[in-house]
């Protein structure tokens, strides 16, 4: 293993040699033990990995995250259950009425009319 290959290994798998592939781990260990330059590279990589690990970490309250997720899921489940309780025929009926009202308004309402008010009237009438 050349120094260049060793350096690429450090960039690929990091300074913890236990994470290196089995077939090159022992070669890397030998290089660290016999080559002062490799040893120096490895020591620098270990310091760099420590810094990288700290920089990548996020401080948080794990229990707070879990509690928040569980509470949100409970709310979603309740909402989902309520949705399923609504009678499907009423939902279809409402959709049909709303669609028909909209189509009628589009055909009958003259240009420049107060479409918002008319639409409100049409939808209100459809719901009665």
């Amino acid at each position: 293993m050349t120094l260049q290959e060793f350096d690429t290994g450090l960039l690929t798998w990091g300074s913890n040699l236990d994470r290196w592939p089995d077939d090159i781990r022992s070669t890397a260990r030998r290089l660290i033990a016999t080559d002062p330059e490799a040893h120096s590279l490895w020591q620098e990589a270990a310091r760099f990995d420590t810094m990288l690990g700290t920089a990548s970490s996020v401080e948080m309250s794990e229990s707070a995250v879990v509690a928040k997720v569980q509470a949100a899921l409970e709310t979603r489940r309740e909402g989902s259950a309520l949705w399923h309780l609504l009678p499907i025929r009423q939902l279809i009926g409402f959709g049909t009425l709303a669609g028909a009202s909209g189509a009628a308004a589009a055909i009958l309402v003259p240009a420049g009319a107060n479409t918002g008010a008319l639409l409100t009237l049409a939808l209100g009438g459809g719901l009665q």
Partner: protein
Amino acid sequence: MARIDPDDDDALLKAAGEGSQTAFNRLVQRHAPRLHAVAQRYGCTSADADEIVQDVFWRVWKHSSKWQPGAARASTWLYRLAVNRTIDSRRATGRRPEDPIEEGQDFQDHTATVEQVLDDQQQLKAMRSAISRLPDRQRLAIILSTQQEKSNFEIAEILGISEGAVEQLLVRARRTLRESYRSLT
């Protein structure tokens, strides 16, 4: 029902798919903080990370019965859902904060001088900033490798790319970050 190993994600997900609320809650306990950390370090705010993790587990709750043991490991599936949802979230907001998280774990060397502590804090801040500037895939690969201690093989499964491609991402990411690190020391 047979007793489930509380640390066996595959068994927990299978049981959740069969309707076990206890197994599902255990999955949330085990993985919600980790997925939250990935989203945050990727650049999401804490509030966005909350939403991402909730969405992931909502999907898991709804679709866990469809998960097949042997196709992909449960934890890989969870991370894949979280990573995809995180990328979508960042695309939607279009933000790329320089360093979204000011709070964070600090060095705990109580023997250090004030100057040393300040130096360490500055290095940490610069390093986080350097991580946040990495291209998306490199950033994800380095977060999964260093923060989550995933193997390159696992990262490849989560990102849906080859192990060789992951190695290239990590080499590029570490090279860039090492340059930043060397300029600080």
